[in-house]
């Protein structure tokens, strides 16, 4: 494995590590829950991405086979990470009902789905999904 590849791999690992560090540091530093929520998205995207690219290169350089598994991992990661972030936000909205007033109302007669007070809700959200997309 010539030194060029090694340098490249090392670079990717360092970049990945840096972003993961930033992510975890952000968890410590940022004040409110929602702002802290941003930190993990950083580490899941570039951080892990960097490491995966590094391992791909390493495999390619060492074993000569282009392994596509790493891209699969990134693909699956990009599909599932937003859902976790979305759920954490939903949970935050649901539990902190009396949150700060800065939350804008979407439109005069509608409200955010988790904040609908139970009485006004006629039928479940999922039914609405199906009608809309039929």
């Amino acid at each position, binding site marked *: 494995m010539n030194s060029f590849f090694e340098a490249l791999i090392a670079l990717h690992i360092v970049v990945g590590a840096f972003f993961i560090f930033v992510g975890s540091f952000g968890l410590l530093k940022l004040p409110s829950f929602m702002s802290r929520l941003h930190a993990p998205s950083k580490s899941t995207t570039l951080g892990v991405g960097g490491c995966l690219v590094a391992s791909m290169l390493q495999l390619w350089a060492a074993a000569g086979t282009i392994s596509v598994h790493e891209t699969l991992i990134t693909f*699956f990661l990009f*599909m*599932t990470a*937003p*859902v976790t972030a*979305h*759920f954490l936000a*939903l949970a935050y909205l*649901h539990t902190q009902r009396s949150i700060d007033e800065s939350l804008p109302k979407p439109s005069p007669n509608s409200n955010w*789905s*988790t904040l*609908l*007070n*139970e009485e006004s*809700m006629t039928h*479940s*959200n*999922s039914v609405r*999904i199906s009608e809309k997309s039929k």
Partner: protein
Amino acid sequence: MSIALIVLLPLLGAVFPALMMRLGKNESAIAASSVTILSLVLLLTNIFAISQSTVPQASWPWVPQIDLNASFFVDGLGLLFAVMILGIGLLVTVYARFYLSPQEALGRFFAYLLLFQGAMLGVVLSNNILLLIVFWELTSLSSFLLIGFKSDSQEGRQGARMALAVTAGGGLALLAGMLLLGQVAGSFELTEILKEGEKIRSSPYYLSILALVLIGCFTKSAQFPFHFWLPHAMAAPTPVSAYLHSATMVKAGIFLMLRLWPVLAGTQTWFYVVAGTGVITMLIAAVIALFRDDLKSILAYSTISHLGIMTMLVGFGSEMAVVACVFHVINHAIFKAALFMNAGIVDHETGTRDISRLGGLASLMPISAITATLAAASMVGVPPMNGFLSKEMMLEEVTHATAIGVAWLLPGLVMLASVFSVAYSLRFLLYTYFGPVRNDYPAKPHDPSRGLWLPPACLVVLAILIGLFPEAWAGSITRLASDAALQSKSPKFHLSLWHGWTPALMMSIFAFGCGATALSLYVPVRSIWNKALLPDAKGLYDLSLNACVRLARITTDRSFNGSLHRMLFLFVLAASALGGVVFARSSYERGERELLPINTSMFVGWVLVIVACFVLAWKHQSRLIALLTVNIVGLISSIAFIYLSAPDLALTQIAVEVVTLILMLLALHFLPKEAINEVISWRQYRDIVLSVAVGASVGFLCWAMMTHDFQSISSYYIQHSKPLGGGANVVNVILVDFRGFDTFGEITVIGIAAMAIYAMLDGMLTGPLSATLLKWTSGLRFSPNRHPMMMVVVTRVMLPLAILVACYIFLRGHNLPGGGFIAALVVSIALIMQYMASGFAWADERVHFDYHALIGGGGLIAAITGIGSIVLGKPFLTSGFKYVDFPFIGKVELASVSAFDLGVFLTVVGGVMLALANLSNLGRMTGDGKQ
């Protein structure tokens, strides 16, 4: 062959009378007696052979491993006892036919009687001492059945239990003794053992053999310390008392001592122990017999006394004493059986056995009076009767024996005992048959039917005949028996009525006189006796029994009062204590295997685990933290598996981790949320100490194990995994191929567990609990947006992808980390996501698979692959594989193992889904499910 038949005939024939009972009492009696007669005839065919002193033998291997073979032989001693058993058995059968009242189950009685007869014959005729013990225990059992025949009577049951406890206990000691004897003698066959006399007497085990065998004999023959069960056995019907507890069963002990005489006798210990016990029993029993009021109880104690006489004679160790003992065995059986039957007649006619309410029956029942007088005369030892002869011989022997240097001690004691025996015999006779005729008998006495008085009459006639012409009638049989017992020519002796004015004659006349005078002074003597406080053996027995029961109850109450905590605590304590003990004894030196270097990331993982354990133990009551920490530990252990080169394990661990988390969350939804503030009592500190101790010891054990090298056995698997199993992934090949059967068992376990879970949950939905379920609410506030759209869409997009990945893992399992389990778990997680994202009903409707069918199908497929190999002639679950070259695709490996793996896959998916789906379904049925 015929010898074994003698023993087996009564045993197998026992069913015959019970069946014939359907036709009537006579037929049943005839059936029983015919079996006995047949057996007797078979026995007598051997007399000619025995007289030529050739001992007929027969032997079959029964349990060769412990060299217990069914070997029988008939020698003189065996012949004598067998004749006695069958002869008296015949008479008792006839007697019982008329004695038992109509409503009593005669058929069952005869069946038990024949069972006992067979067992007793087995004891006297068996050549293998282990076989002898089998029959010995059988006699105890049959006596238990017979004593407790009248199951409604309380003291009958109690007497039976006591008899069994004592005789069977003795049997145990005897078994131990016989085993030792067999070891020392080198063989379990009596014919060999009897030749090894010197070797056994000189072997270090002689004393223990002697003690154990004697305990067996003394318990069976009711000798002094163990005599108390016989009087309580009198609760049995009289025929049983006449047969078992006078003539045959109680003689088994005497028989065994005679049988082993050439081997065990001849030492001072034998003399003192056996003769001593004999004398003491004779004296004490005779004294007690004088003061008993129940007829059968008098006879019981007199039997004990006479057994004492026989034990004493065997104990003397001289050959003439053995002859005297054999002769007395015959005589005692005859007159005692007659007396018992007579007592039965009295009880049958007058309705009572209490001697104080009897008297003057002679004029009312002349025939039974005559037989009673003659039999009692024989027991006392009056000249024309056979009793006199054996008494003379007994007294003769006593005068020669000197105990502990004091010549007169033994004769004195014997004299005293005979005085008492004369007294109680006369009392038995006079107080029932002579004296004033009373009018308050419960029933009108008159002579019984012929069937009742004939059997005792025969016996009495026999007694007179032996008395008058001893040599003609009993001479030859006695000589044969004593030769067999001594295993050598018995000394020259001549049975005759008159021996001249020998000291023995003087002693017996003197004894008779004193006895008569003692009887006349009966009333004052009786009052002294009543005031004397005597230890009641039965009381002691009951006392010890109750004490054991109380002790047992105390220990269980104190240790297990139903609290799970205490049980678990004791369990863990006991386990670790056991480990500690074993460890303390073995020496431990540090293993020399070189250790792996510590890798930093593993160190971080280790710190996390330790902290997680501590936090978990400390904050286990807040559910979120507890769950998190358990999962941290799980994930880190899977990372450790990866690091320690076990990829398969890591995959399974992570998948199981996820499914367990989902499961716990589902369960937590229902369990109460608020924690209980456990009062920090000393109990909690005790738990901490125990758990830390156990943890440390387990850790130390693990450390000790890992530092020592070991010779791994898995090299076999590594070599043969590719050639035999066809797969490079050794772990998977082991799982589905080498240990396929184990995996097959395992998937059934998963199936069963899932079924159990389904049953429990379904029981809640349909059972009485459904009401409480409906009223129950989780107390959580639900967000109106039950199915967030993002989650719904992503899970639906992911489903096909996840199943594809599962197929990938499944197919690569044989050569690379993967396999049925992991694939199944991936699919289950994908499916359960559907339930969580889009609701139970929506998802369940679309799954189209019935999970029960999945479990069953998976198991079936796995079984079929297994049976398939049987069809091909190989053992269950051997796998076959071959490489097929498809034109277009290239080399493909077809392995039967993948079918088995498919079975595993389906069962695990079915199992996991059944558990998780139903648990989530439960939520819909509760109060907050209806929102």
